[in-house]
């Protein structure tokens, strides 16, 4: 795999999130290194998406600190938080495109929000981004309802990449895609990561993605997280890990 600098781009310490009395994470520590692709897995209800949402600030943690790009997300004022959010991009599960805007307009939204980019340049950059994610040449003028699920995800990724973020958060990027589409999306992420130097934080259930593009895998177990390479997890005796990585489906995907 590509070389990974020892520089935590995301640092989570003692994270605790809860909804009412239900505790999702408790004392969770996590480091994401610059330039790596981290896959986050876990059983249903273990809070994979909750972790993602806590890191990007959509959910307030009950305790613990989250530092992204060296800044404590809980201690930022509005302007600082807005500036930080421009340095990452998020791809939600179904793309979460704004349905009243065309794909091109969707990609331009973050650029408009910056306020300093002239319109002509915005359109040029949007064109580059839409081509970059491999959409067909008539996709820019289409509305989200006219796109297939895979195309919506690509368009969502183009929007997430609009401002050349340092980190992209992907929430189940290959869920709901057919195997061909999923493989193409994996390839796309791998390519973009190499050419744009991205750090990727990816919640996924796709064993192929985990195997093919993730440098390390974070597993949510017992409200905490276990991080390691695939080999580390295979060697771990924890029953859930064994069931997950040595199950019949895993054996096929991982070619074990």
């Amino acid at each position: 795999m590509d070389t990974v600098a020892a520089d935590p781009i995301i640092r989570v310490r003692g994270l605790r999130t809860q909804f009412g009395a239900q505790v999702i994470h408790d004392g969770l520590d996590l480091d994401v290194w610059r330039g790596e692709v981290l896959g986050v897995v876990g059983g249903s209800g273990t809070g994979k998406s909750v972790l993602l949402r806590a890191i990007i600030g959509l959910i307030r943690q009950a305790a613990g600190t989250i530092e992204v790009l060296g800044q404590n997300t809980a201690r930022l004022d509005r302007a600082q938080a807005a500036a930080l959010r421009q340095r990452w991009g998020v791809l939600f599960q179904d793309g979460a495109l704004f349905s009243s805007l065309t794909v091109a307009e969707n990609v331009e939204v973050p650029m408009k929000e910056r306020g300093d980019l002239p319109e002509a340049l915005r359109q040029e950059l949007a064109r580059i981004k839409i081509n970059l994610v491999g959409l067909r040449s008539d996709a820019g003028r289409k509305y989200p309802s006219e796109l297939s699920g895979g195309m919506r995800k690509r368009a969502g990724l183009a929007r997430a990449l609009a401002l050349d973020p340092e980190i992209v958060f992907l929430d189940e990027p290959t869920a709901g895609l057919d195997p061909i589409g999923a493989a193409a999306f994996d390839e796309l992420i791998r390519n973009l990561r190499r050419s744009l130097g991205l750090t990727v934080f990816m919640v996924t259930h796709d064993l192929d993605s985990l195997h093919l593009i993730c440098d390390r895998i974070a597993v949510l177990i017992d409200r905490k997280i276990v991080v390691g390479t695939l080999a580390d997890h295979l060697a771990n005796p924890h029953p859930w890990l064994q069931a997950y990585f040595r199950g019949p489906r895993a054996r096929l995907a991982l070619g074990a």
Partner: protein
Amino acid sequence: MANRAGITAHEEAGRVRLVATGPWCVATAAGLDARLRVLAPLGPRVAIDMTGVERLDSAGAWLLHRTRTRLAEAGVPVDLEGVRPEHAGLLQRVVDVDKPMEMVAPRSLAVVDLVRHVGQATVTVLTEARALLGFFGLTVTIALRTLMRPGRLRFTSLINHMEQVGLNAMPIVGLLSFLIGVVLAYQGADQLRRFGAELFTVNLLGVSILRELGILITAIIIAGRSGSAFTAQIGTMKVNQEIDAMEALGLDPVEILVLPRAFALILTLPLIAFFADLMGLIGGALMSLFVLDISLGQFLRQLHESVTTTTFFVGLVKAPVFAFIIALVGCYCGLKVAGNAESVGRMTTQSVVESIFLVIVADAAFSILFSYLDL
């Protein structure tokens, strides 16, 4: 740091050397864009020196590529020098994806658009009316079939819906009718006082509330409150594929979902309308007492002279019809929901607008009918 991004020209033997410096990224793109757009081809041959570019992202790479392409098109060959190895991949990638893309939807003439919209809207209204009529027929058929075998009617569901659409609507319907009575008495008194005919305020109140306003206000509130709820409930079930599951199990969605709602509304709307009549009259009586000094006894005597039981029944007989319209439109719109959440919202709005529209049309039809019958 952001300020140091730039490009400066140096004359060299036989060519111009453009030295790029600083970070070339989104943060500095606006300044670079303005500078590069007006950059003239200064000599017969140009070299761009990239050694000083410490950061390059796709925005910077695009600006570089665009400048190079533009100069090349003007007949000035461009040499790219000193590209850092870590930037080369990105630069190549941007060159690769510089492909045409349709960015805006093609626009047609405004007149053509207008004609098309009018045509589309007309066709939509007509097909909608036809489909609603079809649904009306279907519901009546299934209702008659069910009435033959009353055991098939879902009584628990019926009672539950009666509580929701009837009992729970009483506070809001009562309050609004009361207020309408107050307003009507106040405005009527104001006008009639000029003729010294304040007492006829009672006639105005009695006739208008019992014949028209009581039932109309009730129907409009119920359309907004329960018609929309029907659409949202059934629509959500449609999104969850519950309706499909019912049909797959051999259950009839009309029988299970539509009939209990329709019967509940038909049975309860007359009752709420009666309640609304009472509250409206109470509001009017109170206002008459305070503003016009018409005592309660006087009010009742005058009311007795001005209205008959016919007035009351003419108002109330409309209630089951309005109820059926509201239930029918609410359920129809719910079943028409397509498989997404957005559609639930759209159909709910449509349900309210359509049912209020049809209620008022039906009210007008009743007026014409009653005037023929001399009621």
